[in-house]
């Protein structure tokens, strides 16, 4: 039996203006599993994953690797969960690629040499070792995404969360990202509107609507059930 990494029960959240964003979400994720979060814009997918890393805080319970998420256990959760944001430009803020990749390990308390070693390993893992001295804003969208992932991998998390990972990527870059994600051993949550990508990367999908999980199953089943399979007609699947 696989180890349970994330267990969420009855998670509720309202924005400051009172708008309900999450209305009792239940969710789980096991080790080495990949789950796609699907659903229309504004259905609460991104709001939900921001809770898993403690960036937002609502009512309900969240357990990360068996530890309840509280203010006191925030750093534990952030060690376990690596969050790759939709817009890589927001994630890459250090002057060079290597410094950006080393940012997380340094915050974990590693020495400079250890952090650099981890950063180099992670950059090699995503195929960006040659870019270590380049400025992040000089990279292409696909390269930025890879460096953003390297910055997270360098922290050696057990769970990867990717928010709209294919945004701004051309098809070859999306295919390369897919290949990379398949090779990574971590459990993954992929928030996406890209149904082809979701089908190619995740065996299981969870469908969000109006701040709640309204269905789950295999990606084709979920797409069929919620009328999202239509757009697939005539489209080729990714390699």
């Amino acid at each position, binding site marked *: 039996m696989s180890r349970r990494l994330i267990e969420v029960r009855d998670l509720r959240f309202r924005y400051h203006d009172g708008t309900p964003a999450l209305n009792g979400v239940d969710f789980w994720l096991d080790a080495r599993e990949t789950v796609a979060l699907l659903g229309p814009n504004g259905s609460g997918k991104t709001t939900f994953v*921001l809770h898993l*890393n403690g*960036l937002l805080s609502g009512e309900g319970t969240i357990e990360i690797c068996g530890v309840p998420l509280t203010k006191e256990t925030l*750093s534990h959760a*952030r*060690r376990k969960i*690596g*969050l790759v*944001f939709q*817009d890589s*430009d*927001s*994630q890459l*803020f250090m*002057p*060079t690629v290597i*410094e950006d990749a*080393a*940012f*997380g390990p*340094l*915050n*974990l308390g590693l020495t*400079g040499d250890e*952090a*650099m070693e981890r950063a180099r390993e992670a950059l090699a893992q995503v195929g960006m070792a040659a870019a270590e001295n380049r*400025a992040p*804003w000089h990279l292409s969208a696909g390269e930025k995404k890879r460096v953003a992932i390297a*910055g*997270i991998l360098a*922290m050696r998390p057990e769970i990867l969360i990717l928010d709209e990972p294919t945004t701004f990527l051309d098809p070859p870059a999306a295919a390369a990202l897919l290949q990379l994600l398949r090779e990574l051993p971590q459990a993954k949550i992929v928030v996406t509107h890209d149904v082809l990508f979701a089908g190619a990367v995740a065996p299981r999908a969870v469908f969000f609507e109006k701040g709640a999980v309204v269905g789950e199953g295999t990606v084709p089943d979920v797409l069929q059930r919620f009328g999202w399979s239509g757009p697939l007609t005539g489209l080729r699947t990714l390699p």
Partner: protein
Amino acid sequence: MHHAVLDEWSRRESALHRRDPRAKTAALVVFLIVVTTSTHNFVVLGPAYLGMLVAGMAWARIPPAGALARAAVVLPFSLVFAGAVALAGDPQRAVLLAAKSYVSAAAVLLLVATTPLPALLRGFEGLGAPRFLLMVAQFLYRYLFVISEEAQHMRAAALSRGGGIRAGRTRFRAAAGALAVLFARSHVRASDIHRAMLARGFEGHFRLVRNLRFGLADALFLVPAAGFPLALRLALGGGV
């Protein structure tokens, strides 16, 4: 991008780049005090101070012309005050004010252009600057870049829709509206960056790959860097 120039300069390799930020900051503080308190003979002292800075720029392998041009960013502000002083009937003091502010800005620019910001702020921290203030400074610096990027995007979007051809009142109104949107967008972007930093374990303190070390070479740099302008001022009668 233009705003990345200083960052790029600060990452170059030179003996001046390698000096401990605390040594460079201490030398800068002495230099600024010397410049500020030089009240007599500034016609000679001013160019001499500027010459020292140009020598420092050449030593650090950053282009003096480009650096001096960027230091002129302070002039619009100082000229306003200089103009007020001149109108008050003291043109000599007005010129002195503008000249001193320019030399001081060039000195600050030399420090910033030879020290990456995280190391610079760590140096300030080592000299006892309040941590909260430094955190504000580092976010302000990063967010200035964000605002600049957002402004460039909005300008491109406006130009692509003929935003540059309107004139007069309509243009002013559009610019005022754009400014409000710019700040709103920048706020959202800045929040995203802050979240991304928190998600990677940031706890309000930039950590460096290499810890600062104040060595013999830094001391050997500090003595002449602080002593020479002081000696020059005393020798050429900069006043008390």
